[in-house]
């Protein structure tokens, strides 16, 4: 509950206070202070000191699992603020408002990780995504950004309606007439067509929010069109929040009727991995390529939901941690490059050896090379499947999709180290020392988690 209150209040405060400190650099410091406060508040609640207690008919119910993910999301946002704070300030003319929108979105993430009824689920998801519609189109001189915003809004609104329809059908269809996810009794009565329809609609809607195929069409345009820092936030925080909501819903409410949705989810996962990875190979723009990578990673993450085991849960945690860190690092580097094609990376190994090394570590982690957290995340997800037996073919598909992903991730490494710089040295923007140190810290965390995963995973049993 701490996180929801603090992020909401801080968002409102920044929006109102924006009048006072317009056009000054204090905004980013206030935002960082708020982020630290939010992180601290969330950790306090995790170690059982909630500052606010609020009953609300138990429509929200915090769990250590959800709080754990809040920590990851908040830490990720803090990193984005530290790395790209200036970029957020200069998105448009309203520096404070952009930060406040991000805080509202984080409020949505905290609701989405601790919902207890279908209504609060919907509320959380909308709260999480609606600020993004503005952020995506915030650069109003960029037509691609506005197009992306409109596209995201129209399709997003459509799928929100689908989610709402699904919720209504489930509410009407279950014998207790309950909205509480733990009380919706399925399986005890015969699963009626209304529930089934509702579940399929919810599955489609949630798959859209995590940009899993075949509901992924909005993602590439949005990632490509928006300012880089927004892509970073979208991939590392919002999509993760949506996935946790997805995971929670299907492991609690629909956990009782697993056989009914498993085939559907397997299809979605396989399609995402195949379409995402194969299409990513053919992209010119790196941001677009990473968008397809996000689609593929969503598919991989769904394996954790299919396997439904403790190892799978640990895998989800590790995977999300490594993936969020890797994406934040990648987008931070991209935001400093002269252009968004592969040429931007050419010769980075010569121009800036440190940054090239860290970028390689992010890419190795995203590919799933041992010694990095990305490998263990993927390994645990696959192990969860393996323990179930009979998922051999899915393991093989997932493995091959990992191999395919190496093609486009390693192309960047190849450009950095084996090619001469394309842009003149003057064209390469300066990277501050603090920026490079932060990238180094992210890389170090990735390697540390790759060696000692327990420091992240053990908390889900807390």
């Amino acid at each position, binding site marked *: 509950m701490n996180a929801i209150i603090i992020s909401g209040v801080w968002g409102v405060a920044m929006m109102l206070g924006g009048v006072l400190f317009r056009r000054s650099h204090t905004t980013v410091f206030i935002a960082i202070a708020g982020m630290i406060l939010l992180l601290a508040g969330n950790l306090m609640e995790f170690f059982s000191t909630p500052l606010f207690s609020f009953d609300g008919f138990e429509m929200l119910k915090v769990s250590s699992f959800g709080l754990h993910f809040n920590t990851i999301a908040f830490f990720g946002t803090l990193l984005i603020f530290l790395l790209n704070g200036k970029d957020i300030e200069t998105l448009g003319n309203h520096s404070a408002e952009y930060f406040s929108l991000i805080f509202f979105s984080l409020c949505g993430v905290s609701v989405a990780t601790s919902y207890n009824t279908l209504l609060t689920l919907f509320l959380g998801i909308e709260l999480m995504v609606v600020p993004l519609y503005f952020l995506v189109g915030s650069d109003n001189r960029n037509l691609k950004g506005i197009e992306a915003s409109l596209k995201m809004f129209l399709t997003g609104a459509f799928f929100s309606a689908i989610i709402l329809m699904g919720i209504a059908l489930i509410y009407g269809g279950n014998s207790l007439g309950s909205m509480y996810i733990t009380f919706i009794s399925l399986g005890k009565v015969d699963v009626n067509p209304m529930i089934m329809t509702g579940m399929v609609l919810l599955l489609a809607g949630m798959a859209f929010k995590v940009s899993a195929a075949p509901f992924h069409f909005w993602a590439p345009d949005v990632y490509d069109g928006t300012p880089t820092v927004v892509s970073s936030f979208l991939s590392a925080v919002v999509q993760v929040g949506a996935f946790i909501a997805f995971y929670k819903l299907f492991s609690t409410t629909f956990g009782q009727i697993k056989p009914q949705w498993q085939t559907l989810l397997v299809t979605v996962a396989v399609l995402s991995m195949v379409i995402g990875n194969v299409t990513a190979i053919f992209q010119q723009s790196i941001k677009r390529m990473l968008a397809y990578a996000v689609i593929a990673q969503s598919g991989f993450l769904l394996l954790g939901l299919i396997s439904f085991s403790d190892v799978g849960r640990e895998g989800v945690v590790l995977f999300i941690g490594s993936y969020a860190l890797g994406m934040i690092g990648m987008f931070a580097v991209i935001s400093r490059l002269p252009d968004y094609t592969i040429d931007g990376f050419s010769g980075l190994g010569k121009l800036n050896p440190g940054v090239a090394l860290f970028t390689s570590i992010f890419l190795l982690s995203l590919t799933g090379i041992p010694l990095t957290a990305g490998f263990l995340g993927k390994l645990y997800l696959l192990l969860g499947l*393996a323990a179930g037996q009979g998922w051999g073919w899915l393991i093989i598909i997932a*493995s*091959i999709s990992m*191999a395919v992903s190496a093609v486009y991730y390693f192309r960047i490494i190849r450009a950095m180290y*084996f090619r001469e710089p394309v842009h003149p040295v003057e064209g390469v923007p300066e990277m501050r020392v603090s920026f490079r140190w932060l990238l180094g810290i992210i890389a170090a965390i990735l390697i540390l988690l790759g060696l000692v995963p327990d420091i992240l995973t053990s908390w889900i049993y807390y």
Partner: protein
Amino acid sequence: MLGNYVTFPELLLWIPFVMGLIVLLLKSAKAVKVVSLISVWLTLGVAVVSLVYALPAKEADYWNYNNVSYYWLRYIGSSFTLGLDGISHVFTLLTSLVFALVFMVTSGSSYEKPNAFYAMLLFWQSAITGVFVAFDVLVFYFFWIIVLVLTFFLMGRWGDSWKTGFAFKFFIYQFTGALLFLAAVLILYPYTVPVQADSAHSFTISAFFISPFLAGVQVRAFLLMAIPFFVMIPIFPFHTWFPGSSARSPYPVAMILGSVMVIMGLYGMIRLAIPLFSIAFEKFQDVIFILCVVSIVYSGFIALIQDDLKRLVAWASVTHVGIATLGVCSGNAVALAAGMFETINHGIIIAGLWMVMFIIEALTGKRSISSLGGIAKKSPGLAVFFFFVLFAVVGLPLTGSFYAKWHILEGLAGVSTVALVGLILGYLLTLLLMINIARKVFFGTVSEAVAMAGSMSVMQVIALVLVILAILILGIYPDAVTDLFKASVDNIIKRTGG
């Protein structure tokens, strides 16, 4: 003392790694070379000393000195287990020997960013050693991938023009294979028995050996697991990455790639694929034979028409390693032991062949056969060395290869006619190839490039003498190595019931 605190596998793993870190920090090219030479010699020394502790007299302490296990991912049943048994002893000794030879021979040439290059090579040595001493399947996979990533960087960053394409192809090929290996391991995982209290299943190799795998599971896992090993060896049709990658790599990388790295594939077959999946192995044995024979004959003929010496040696080594693979996959005790012995021979002989080619290019600046000729007149010393290597490749008596090739033939005689025919063709083709090189490169009229050539450095002479010594020792006293293999051969034969 040693056994209580540090063990041999750890030393073999950490010395190159730590020395690599030191090398990375050095500035001058000379210091880099000196330190890396010290490192490879130190590692070789440790590998030799570790053999002393394998003698029967030290049997009581053997376990303490050669096995170590650390907790790592204990809840999924994986631990950082390292060990040295008979096979590992030989393979690690070979690795450290070849690295020492390669570093000596190439000490004269200069590379861009020498500190990074030599540090990478030393890390590479550490990772390859890691593959040979890992006693946990996940740790094995871990080192295997690190070897691939390092090779990718070494090939791409320091290779010739066209380099990027080949390094990339190499990595994608091998990484796909390695992931299939991982898939095989994961398919087997739920059937393994636990060896520790913390987890329901286990990744240690010993657990895999005591777990019962049903025939269906075996077939699936064997098909998945054999692919990465065959890609690495390389066996037709998975060989296409090899000649290009070898030819476009810098010499030190190409030498190690052809001699040590490819036998990682054979090691995988010996350590995991064959003994674990005896039922599946018997089922697919004929297919493997045919692939090996095709590989031997096909690459032998392609090697005959090559003009570039680097490509020629690369194709010749595909032929040669095919012979060793036939022996290893024979399922017959005599041929199996000989095949494993031939694997070791392959490492030394091919390293020797690459060394001769390197010296030719270093002296004359040319590496196409058409622009060479008459080296025997200009540099008789090099010619003598080459002929020793030639004898070994062809398998004349007194070389280790003779013993191995003879026994592979003897063992396969009763097993498969196809394999036998392929084997004999392979022997003939290698003979033809070697004589071809001798005739065109070492005899004939002295070409312009050769006339301008300088002379070998002392380091190179020492390295070549060491190669010849190794070849002769293996030829005169093969039991030194085959005794170390014995336990493993018996184990495989017992499991396959042949």
